[in-house]
């Protein structure tokens, strides 16, 4: 088996000095205050309160259809609450969202699709360089010139991930970013996300259906059920984390217990 991923990766963010001043590059806090979101009769989010401190890595888990994507869309400003308010700290915070579907532009080649994620003020050559690094980090540098349509499902998802990660946001929202990946690639990508988060210090909200993934990455894990936060669990484990450590196993067990209704 070729292990292209491992040795292909180069320093993903060894690029020129960051254009944004460090103060702005840091994460912003976010807050849900009694948020209700109704679709017709059903309240998908029901008087939900949640504080996300600046720079936190929050994982959101929950059953299919429990409202995780809806919650993320409120944060991204793509949807407005029916009642209550969502506030994001900072003046004009830079928020980026990786959707549950790849949502690649079919009319732009892979590299150009990653460039979509770049901040507007980045110049062309540097942008290209950064996009290429991101593509290399997700193991797809050799597919830079292709149309998205010919990529496999997991490859499309990795391109979308690269697009989200080049963007240097203050608040990064990831909606099941690794759902279509095999175990090996998935671990690689988790490491990548963690490294970039550590380097840039943004606030991260990760929706995932893999509890192990949540405990491997997050500072704090919340379980959403019936439109509310059913469980709010800090995961203050040291980094870099070891997979399968007893502490993370304990956290996973608590979440699964709650999830399975035990």
């Amino acid at each position, binding site marked *: 088996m070729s292990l292209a991923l491992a040795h292909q990766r180069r320093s993903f963010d060894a690029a020129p000095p960051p254009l944004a001043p460090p103060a702005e590059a840091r994460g912003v806090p976010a*807050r849900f205050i009694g948020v209700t979101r109704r679709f017709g009769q059903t309240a998908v989010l029901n008087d939900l309160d949640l504080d996300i401190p600046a720079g936190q890595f929050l994982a959101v888990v929950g059953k299919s259809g429990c409202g995780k994507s809806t919650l993320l869309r409120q944060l991204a*400003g793509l949807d407005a609450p029916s009642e209550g308010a969502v506030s*994001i700290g900072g003046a004009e915070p830079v928020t980026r969202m990786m959707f549950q579907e790849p949502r690649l532009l079919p009319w732009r080649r892979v590299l150009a699709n990653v460039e979509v994620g770049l901040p507007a003020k980045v110049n062309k050559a540097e942008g290209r360089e950064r996009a290429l690094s991101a593509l290399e980090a997700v193991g797809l540098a050799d597919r830079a010139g292709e149309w998205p349509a010919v990529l496999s499902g997991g490859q499309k998802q990795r391109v979308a991930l690269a697009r989200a990660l080049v963007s240097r946001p203050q608040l990064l929202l990831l909606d099941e970013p690794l759902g279509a990946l095999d175990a090996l690639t998935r671990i690689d990508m988790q490491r990548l996300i963690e490294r970039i988060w550590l380097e840039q210090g943004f606030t991260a909200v990760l929706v995932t259906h893999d509890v192990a993934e949540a405990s491997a990455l997050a500072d*704090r894990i919340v379980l959403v059920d019936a439109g509310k936060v059913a469980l709010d669990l800090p995961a203050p484990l040291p980094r870099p984390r070891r997979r399968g450590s007893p502490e993370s196993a304990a956290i996973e067990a608590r979440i699964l217990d709650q999830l399975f209704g035990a």
Partner: protein
Amino acid sequence: MQQQTIDAAQAAAFSADAARRPGAGATPDAPVAARTPQTQNAPRRLAGVERRVAGWILPLLLILAWEALSRAGVIHGNVLPAPSAIALAGWQAARSGDLFENMAVSAARALAGLIVGGTIGFVFGIANGVSELTHRYTDTTLQMIRNVPHLALIPLVILWFGIDEEAKLFLVALGVFFPIYINTLHGVRTVDPQLIEMGRAYGMTPVTLFLRVILPGALPSIFVGLRFALGVMWLTLIVAETIAAQSGLGHMAMQAREFLQVDVVMLAILIYALLGKLADVLTRLLEGVCLSWHPNFQPARN
């Protein structure tokens, strides 16, 4: 990194810009994004009224300006009669029954042409969209015929169909054919190939595949063709009704033009415009029914 709580002061420091309160997030004039408005009832009712009358404001303003200019003598009545004069001409024509007879005759011709030409265009559009073979052999010919003006064709049409209803029907059908054909073809060819593949993988017969996947997928585009065709239908009649017609809206307009009855010409123009609006309303209703799954084709679009 530690969990922290946002206290009231901190919350107040949040930028007002970034705070999203109910309805604040929705861009008010972006029909391409499907957002649910969170507006209250009273403003919504007002907004509903505004939405319904909005389209008529511009035409109304134009007519008012025109009437004012006419009364002020800036526009000479011989040249461009005032709206009130046109309304009078309309009232007289209506009272004598001529107007309605002309419109009924034209409507019958238009509908017959629409049915014949629309059906053929639809069939060709589907066939050429689905089958590369017929596309290859017929599309060039059709694209060539499309480019021939009806006015130039009239000698041939008289030769083939005489000067009676068949000739008029043929011209209208020909005119209606192309928008339907081209847009059906486009619609069929741009149906999501993934869905077609799905249909095949689920063992759909060609007929089922067509009815369940290709046709619904092509429908939004077909409606664009239909909307265009409903216009062309009336436009062609004005040419068709120069062929030995004794009645009909086009005949009325062209005769009036021939004898410089400017008020009648203007009346005809206004009637054409209203018929265009009518056709548009009908297509919209049809779209609302047939494309109810499509967020962008709802009658009360946000």
